[in-house]
């Protein structure tokens, strides 16, 4: 049981990294990876939203969508839940921890449109996880997202001073770097047989 959960965690962080292997959540991956500090904040916020929304959508799937045969509403319901979760977390943070709220700033509402969050909720439903597995899967997905974001941010901070050919300055070189990073993660292929 515990070993199974650990394997899910390793699998989502390294082997099936949401960004570098499933290619989900590329917009924040490119958009919020200019500084290591902001990348970390974005990563934590996303991990929090992913975990909470995965558990809530799991509950809705098991106790509402499946019993009432409303599977066709899955996407709509999930998006609604994610948006609500983001808004709720933002309100709670603003009241209880203004400092953290200020650090996360605009990134918190932006998570609503992160396709990795929706993709994760749908994958949880497809894989038929129980609630604990869903929570670990979501946390792993968030940590993997954070890892990819921070690694790319580290390289990008360094690239600011690099003498990159004119045509590749800005986003093109970031996409190439992301591709190379994704190739490096190929080494984890087969690490966890799933």
């Amino acid at each position, binding site marked *: 049981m515990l070993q199974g959960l650990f394997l899910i965690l390793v699998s989502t962080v390294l082997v099936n990294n949401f960004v570098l292997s499933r290619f989900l959540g590329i917009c924040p991956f490119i958009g919020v990876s200019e500084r*290591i500090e902001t990348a970390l904040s974005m990563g934590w916020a996303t991990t929090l939203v992913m975990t909470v929304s995965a558990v809530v959508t799991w509950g809705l799937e098991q106790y509402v969508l499946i019993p009432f045969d409303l599977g066709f509403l899955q996407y709509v319901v999930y998006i609604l839940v994610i948006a609500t979760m983001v808004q709720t977390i933002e309100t709670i943070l603003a009241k209880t921890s203004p400092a953290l709220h200020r650090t996360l700033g605009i990134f918190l509402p932006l998570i609503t449109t992160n396709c990795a969050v929706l993709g994760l909720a749908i994958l949880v439903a497809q894989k038929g996880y129980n609630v604990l597995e869903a929570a670990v899967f979501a946390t792993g997905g968030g940590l993997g997202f954070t890892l990819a974001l921070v690694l790319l941010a*580290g390289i990008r901070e*360094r690239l600011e001073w690099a*003498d*990159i050919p004119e045509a590749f300055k800005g986003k093109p070189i970031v996409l190439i770097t992301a591709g*190379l990073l994704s190739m*490096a993660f*190929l*080494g984890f292929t*087969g690490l966890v047989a799933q």
Partner: protein
Amino acid sequence: MNGKLEVRAAPHLLDPDSTAKIMYSVLLALIPSALAGVILFGVHALWLMLVSVAAACFTEAGCQLLLRQPVTITDGSAAITGLLLAFNLPPSFPLRYAAFGAFMAIVLGKQLFGGLGENPFNPALIGRVVLAAAFPQEMTTWQALGGVMADAATTATPLGLIKLGQVPALSELLLGNVLGCIGETSVVAILIGGIYLLWRKIIDWRIPVGMLGSVAVLSVLLGADPLVQLSTGGLMLGAFFMATDPVTSPVTKPGRWIFAIGAGAVVVLIRFFGGLPEGVSYSILLMNAVKPILNKATKPRIFGEVRGRA
């Protein structure tokens, strides 16, 4: 200016080492492994090295001409990339694919990022993983087309044999009388070059010691023979010649320790738990990606600086 007092602007270079001189020392250190490769795997290995080096130099010159930059192929860095890429190829690898790999190594791994000194990843390893992703069949076919290994009874590498439960003799591993990539099998040849570079202080001892040490310690903990683990696969070649690349490894001493130990840990993770038999190239690339963060996290504090007031 023939007086005793010579006025010059800083930096005052006292060290005769230049980029080109360091690069040629590294090339010199790679010669034993190149010779071992040709003796073990025949003339095709020599062709692979020549094609790969030529393609790397040609691509570098082409990129620099297109970008209207001074052509710097005489500094030897492109040649090292080409030679290291060839060292990481199986002995029967097709020559045209090797040329393609060298092209990708220079373009994707180096020139797009602004050339020597700016690349985040080791270019030779980028070439290798591109080839591994593009030609998985050819990159895992182990067959010597000539040389000492031509009559080898097996077509598996030592790490492949270990996964099947057969452990090759240590003496064979040290000499390199086993199948594998051209430049990685002969531990003795790599050590000759590696010790020369350590003696010249071109590479930092912390990186090979940390990387080999962590692999040895972790394999003991996992119940494997550490000497066999150290002398198989691309570990020696990687620890001495690829992880030590001055551009893609951290500059601080603590950063180098973390870099090296982390690389060794990823090698063990992939070898013992992964789907691939060998993970040295991936482990070094992954630590290359962590390098900027290590540099930043282990930056020495400026004397008198007060923490928290950036």
